[in-house]
Structure formats: structure tokens, C-alpha cells
């Protein structure tokens, strides 16, 4: 169950093209599982930016001098994220979390492949640790447009049996996309589950690669959210249910982690005509 707390900035540090924000988050870090996210209030109480910004939880510490703390990774995309990275130590931040459905972990000691695009690798650290604790083999693939936009390669290398890096410009690792190297890696390690977080086209291809091999995929999606807690209905995408019926589900409440084979990737951003309650005769009135 999520809580709303007033946290404080402990530290903010640069990591390549990103910033890592450490916050006190009493009551949140203790409940966090890999894949959970938090939303942060932007601009203080009188802010003209009403919408909270959502971030995958990167790391947590539930004990220590500050009680619970957590880290999120921020890529500056606009005014809200700019405001966040301009915070200083001790500045207050309103935090809600942990939110969403986390990654599902395998019951057996199977080989798991973790795929991160850009700072989509942020939630994979905790996941890698927990999979290792369960005795799963963990291989990691990280990709970005360029070296600067990779996140956490060094640390993930320690957690993984192998780390493969791809960049679009070839500035580090292999030139190309994560999904170029994924099929061969899946075959080599006999991967049973793929966990992925990153841009939608990457997730779509990861889900396909997994499905071609009858492997499971767990994809954490990124959709624009207004509330993050399941009340506003802005972050929906078409998901096929157990009953075979497609519904527009909330990525904040039913996600952000979905089984890759349940998401109608090619139709994200649309209402597929066979969706429950889809418009007929020229759109919703």
C-alpha cells in the first residue's frame, strides 16, 4: 500500500547524462520491490506544475541513520525534471510510493536476462540482486544512443554473469541496439525470463524475442501519467487479459510491469477496434 511522505533531499549527483537523487523516504523504502515507482511533487506547494513526476525506484536503504532512503535516476526532459535536479541537500520533496505492480520473480533458479535502454536500467539493479539471491543466473544488456546515456554499467557488471553493452553510435560496446544482441544471448544462456525497461519500441522487440523462444518477458513501460495512483485514466495502453479480451489498462495501477505477450505493442497509443467498449461508427461521441 502506497504512502505519501514529506522526504528530504540527501544527495544529488551526476551520472553521465543523468542525475541520481537520493531522498529520505520513511515508510516507502521498506515496502519497495524491484519495478515499483514513486511520484514526486514538483515546484513546492504553490507550484504551477500540478502533475507529479514518476520515477522508477533505483535503490533503497531501509535502515541507517536516515531511516528509509531511496534513489531515483532523473533525465532532464522539461521544466519539472529541471526543477528536481536543481534541488539542494535538505530541500523538502513530497513523495508518494511505492506505486505500481513490481516485477514478478521466478520461483525456480532459471537464467534471467535483464535489458535496460538508457536510464531504464535504473530499476534493474535491485532486480539483479534479488534474482541472484534466489540463485538465478543474471545476464545484463544495456543500450543507449551514446556512451554518456548509459546508466550504471560498472555496477551492473558486478551483479551480472555477463554485461553486454550496445550504443547506436558505437561509442561503447557494440554498435547497434540491445535487441540486436539479445537473441544470441538468450540462446546462449537458455534464458527463461527477460526483464526489460526502456523505450516502447525496445520493449516491443524484447517481447517478440522472448515470445519466439517461449520465454517469459516482464516489461516496465513508460507512459505519461497525471496522478500515478490510478484515478486519472491518462496512462492507459491496450492489454490482452486472461480471457482474451483487450482492455485499456492503467500503466500506473495495473503496470508499470506487464507481461510482454499481453501488451498490444503495435497499437499502443490507439484503441484497437476489438477493445472492450471501443468506439463504433466514427469514434466516441
Amino acid at each position, binding site marked *: 500500500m502506497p504512502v505519501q511522505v514529506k522526504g528530504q533531499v540527501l544527495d544529488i549527483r551526476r551520472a553521465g547524462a543523468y542525475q541520481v537523487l537520493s531522498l529520505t523516504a520513511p515508510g516507502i523504502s521498506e515496502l519497495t520491490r524491484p519495478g515499483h515507482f514513486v511520484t514526486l511533487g514538483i515546484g513546492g506547494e504553490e507550484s504551477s506544475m*500540478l502533475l507529479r513526476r514518476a520515477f522508477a525506484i533505483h535503490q533503497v536503504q531501509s535502515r541507517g541513520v*536516515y531511516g528509509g532512503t531511496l534513489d531515483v535516476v532523473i533525465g532532464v526532459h522539461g521544466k519539472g525534471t529541471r526543477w528536481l535536479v536543481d534541488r539542494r541537500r535538505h530541500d523538502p520533496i513530497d513523495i508518494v510510493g511505492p506505486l505500481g505492480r513490481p516485477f514478478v520473480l521466478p520461483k525456480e533458479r532459471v537464467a534471467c536476462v535483464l535489458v535496460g535502454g538508457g536510464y531504464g536500467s535504473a530499476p534493474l539493479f535491485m532486480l539483479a540482486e534479488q534474482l541472484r539471491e534466489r540463485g538465478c543466473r543474471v545476464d545484463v544488456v544495456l543500450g543507449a544512443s551514446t556512451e554518456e546515456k548509459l546508466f550504471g554499467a560498472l555496477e551492473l557488471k558486478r551483479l551480472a554473469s555477463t554485461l553486454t553493452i550496445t550504443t547506436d553510435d558505437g561509442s561503447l560496446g557494440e554498435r547497434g541496439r540491445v535487441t540486436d544482441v539479445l537473441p544470441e544471448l538468450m540462446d546462449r544462456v537458455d534464458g527463461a525470463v527477460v526483464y526489460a525497461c526502456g523505450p516502447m519500441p525496445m520493449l516491443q522487440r524484447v517481447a517478440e524475442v522472448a515470445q519466439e523462444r517461449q520465454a517469459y518477458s516482464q516489461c516496465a513501460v513508460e507512459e505519461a501519467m497525471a496522478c500515478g495512483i490510478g484515478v486519472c*485514466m491518462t496512462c492507459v495502453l491496450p492489454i490482452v487479459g486472461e480471457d482474451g479480451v483487450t482492455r485499456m489498462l492503467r500503466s500506473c495501477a495495473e503496470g508499470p510491469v506487464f507481461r510482454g505477450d499481453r501488451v498490444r505493442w503495435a497499437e499502443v497509443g490507439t*484503441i484497437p477496434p476489438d477493445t472492450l467498449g471501443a*468506439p463504433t461508427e466514427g469514434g466516441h*461521441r
Partner: protein
Amino acid sequence: MTRALISQGPMPGDSAVPFVDMTADLAGVELPSPVLTASGCAAAGRELDQFFDITSIGAIVTKSVMLQPRSGRPTPRMAETPSGMLNSIGLQGPGIDRFIDHDLAWLADRGARTVVSIAGGTVDEYAKLAARLRIVRGVSAIEVNISCPNVEDRGQVFACDPNSAASVIQAVKRHSDPRMPIFAKLSPDVTDIVSIAASVVRAGATGVSVINTLLGMVINADTMRPHLAGVTGGLSGPAIRPVAVRCVWQIRQAFPDLPIIGMGGIRTGLDALEFVLAGANAVSVGTVVFHDPSAPLRIHEELQRALAERGFGSLADAVGYAHRPPDVTAEVDDDLDFITE
């Protein structure tokens, strides 16, 4: 030293709020608090119940429900705007049957007071929704979302035409329990909101909810196309508050005794107070919930404090207080005790 870093913020009820009778009377329905959620901003209460006790506020106003399940519009459905946001959800929802079995039943079990918002594309759909709700328990009032396009009138929005608005309200009234309070939710996108209010009151509305969102639009500077998949969307948030306060004021001036639920950009207790002073008997808080999920309870406490600070012994005494004759204004401080007695 380390403990000082961890501030939980004030917990509800832990600081003494001076006593003010916060009972709100909405056409015979007595609510322990004048603060309600706003339709479409609280779903059906479950999610917000994680952040505050939803039975402690006036009522949950549920997201507008239609006869059939509905997928809503494609994404993007939302854009942040200065002190506000645009939304174009397209009334995604489960349909009335599942709503009654799943959502309304949960709200009743939870002990929350519920105002059910209904929406339709034809007068007949509204009538059927009202008839469906007649036979279920746990409904404190019906709010009729008439800001929907009328498919039988070239998509003209019911709320923008006095006759269409009246036919919807008439149909809902006719098919509801005669004792059920019916609130017509009015759109500010009209030339004269008072004439629409007059029309729905004549048609049998018990009261009005004022206001719905304003129609707006954002062009994405990168794609150089409309940002929302639905092209236009409803503007909400503090940006629209002065428009909403004006609408409440005008309707209160025309109808001294009409029950009014005021809404539009309420973020704090002082914002809620503005609506009450302008003539609202109760208020709905909507978009602020996206910013602060525990806002409804906070706003209740802030409003209570604000009323106490101004010498009001009860919420009812403050309703429409801004309409008092100007000669009283000169000595407001000295006269407060006298006025509130």
C-alpha cells in the same frame, strides 16, 4: 539531528482545529463535511482510500458512468498547462452494471457517502441510467454530467443549450426516486450560465454543480500537431478558479436558495472558502488530488480553520457571505460576532 531530517508533515487531526459546525446540507442530504471529490478525479474512491479515510469527507463523487463499458480515447490524453491540465479521457469506464456491482457496492460496504455521476449520448441513455440507479442502495445524490455531445443533435453539447440540458434533467428526474437529489453539472463554456441554471432548475434539478472543465487545446511544438489524441480537452486546475467562482457567484445571485456544489481549481482551504463565500453549499476538489492525493481531507481541515479564524461558528453561516450588502463591509471585523449568531 538525524531525526530532524525526517519530517512526516502534519498528520490529520493532530493539531487542534477550533470547532466549527462543518455540516453541509445538500437538498436534505446532510454531509459531515462540505468537501467532496470531483467527478473523474477520484475514480470510485478505492485508490484515494489508501491516502485518507474517504468516509471522513462529505462524499465521493464517482467518475461519470455510462450505460455500456467504454474504452475512452487514444493517448495522449493529458497535457500539463500553467496551473492546470488538459484532459481528454473520453469517459473510459466499466458501464453501469459493473459499476453498481463492483464500485458502488464497495463504496457502500466501506461506508462512504456516494454521489453518482452519470453521462450519456442521448436523453434516453440518461433516463435508463437513472432508472438503473433507482433500484440500488448507497446513492446519496445523482450528479448529471451534461457536458456530453448529444448524438441526436449533431454532437451539440447538452450543457450548452438550455432546452437539451432541460430534457436530460427532466428525464433523469422522471426516472429517479422522487426523493433523490439531482444535481446538474454545468459547463462554463456558455454565454450565460445563469440561463442554463434556470433551465435545469425548471426541469426539476435539485441543485447545480458548478463548473465542469473549460474546453482547451495545446499544440505540441515538436510534432507541430495537437498534443492530445482527442485534439481538444477539458481544462481544470487553479487556472480556472476565478471563472468557477464567478459562475457560482452569478448563480447564487439569481437563486438565493438553490443548492450549489462549487468546484474548479480548489487547492487549499482558502480556495474552498472563496467558493463558499460566493455561495457554494459544498465544494468538490478534483485536479489537486493528482498533485496531492490526501488533499480532500487537508482542504476540509484548512477550511474549518479558515472559518474559525473569521469567526464563523458554522459552515452554513458562511455560504454566500460575500453577497452581503456593502454597508456591512465597512465594519466587518466588529460585526462578525453579531452576524454569525
